């Protein structure tokens, strides 16, 4: 998936807003929202919040987790544990990015929060790289005891896609080389019987 498609997916998350107008319920296909009451907080999908915000029809309420102390704790936990920590939102990075872009003035301590989020992201990326490395190193030292399977659990969609261009394709390539290697060996064994050449039809 392309980054903008990921952002598109992230935009369906709900976010709190405070409207400055009154309006009745709106029955969207993705669920009913409203009623809008001026000054009363409510939840709507991000794509709509961005639209209303652009027209200055609402203020955006940053999600609960976008708070300095909470994020600090999260950052420390991320550093302490070997596995990935569950993020408060499955589209954590995307929601943050959208809020920074559209509602920066609503977030208290925005600069600090940006730094912390970046730190969390970097820590996770580093872990992800180590995990990826494990995938290949493991191949050479096949006999490993305990669970060698790298856990991707709790990775957000965005992070998975950051590993995407590289990891699955590299693994596919390794698997392909192994297949060719095996094929060639079995071909060598039967060279005398027939002059079979391996088919190039495998992509």
């Amino acid at each position: 998936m392309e980054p903008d498609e990921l952002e598109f997916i992230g935009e369906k998350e709900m976010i709190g807003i405070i409207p400055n107008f009154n309006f009745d319920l709106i029955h969207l296909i993705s669920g009913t929202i409203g009623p809008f009451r001026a000054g009363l907080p409510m939840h709507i999908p991000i794509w709509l919040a961005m639209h209303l915000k652009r027209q200055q029809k609402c203020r955006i309420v940053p999600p609960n987790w976008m708070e300095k102390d909470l994020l600090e704790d999260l950052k420390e936990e991320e550093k302490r544990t070997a596995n990935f920590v569950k993020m408060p939102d499955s589209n954590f990075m995307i929601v943050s990015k959208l809020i920074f872009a559209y509602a920066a003035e609503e977030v208290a301590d925005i600069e600090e929060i940006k730094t912390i989020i970046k730190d969390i992201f970097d820590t996770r990326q580093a872990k992800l790289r180590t995990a990826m490395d494990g995938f290949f190193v493991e191949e050479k030292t096949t006999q490993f005891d305990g669970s060698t399977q790298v856990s991707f659990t709790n990775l957000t969609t965005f992070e998975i896609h950051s590993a995407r261009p590289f990891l699955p394709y590299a693994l596919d390539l390794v698997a392909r080389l192994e297949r060719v290697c095996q094929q060639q060996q079995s071909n060598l064994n039967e060279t005398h019987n027939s002059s079979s050449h391996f088919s190039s039809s495998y992509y």
Partner: protein
Amino acid sequence: MSDENIENNLNESEINLDEEDEDDELITPQELLEKIEIAWINEKSAPDILEYQGELVDLMMGQIVHMEENLQSIPSNDLRKTVHKMELERIKYIIASYLRCRLQKLEDFTQYMIEEEKKRPLNKKRLSEAELKFAEDYHESIETHFHQLALQHLPPQQDDISKRIIRPNVMGHVFVKVLKPCGTIVNTKDEEVDLSENSIHLLPYQLIAELLNKGDICLI
């Protein structure tokens, strides 16, 4: 029409949908959308073509048409109109992207897709009629083109169509998210992988194709 009437009209779609879907469990537009989103992401991530979610697409298209009809009676300065329109555009994008992604796969692996589809029993067909027709037409024009361009100048024994088949890499690795716990499976390195709920794994597509088809897991 009074405001209330319009709202009722917009709401009516839910009831209609339930009626149409008698044999299956009842589904709200919201669930329908979620299912389509999952189907879309699965299709984008899977190397092979997946079963065509015709029923979902048809239901959603019905919803969209219905909603668009209702919107015509709302004045264009009404907030509802803009909001509904925006949502419809988003949904249309998902459906278009879903269908386009399938067509891309059909174009890439035309002959393989047609042959596999022929092997499948009637209740396990993956392509819609229109898609199958598209694939066959596309295949025919490509073959004609190849023939006119080069193949007719080759000795007949050199032209072996089976050597020209392009297959998707079904052993390609995909990221999998487990929706319902489904025990363990053994990966290519003979290790057991525990597919507990909400866990994420990187596995070859072929190993999980069956689970994906059942909807116990989804791709990301």
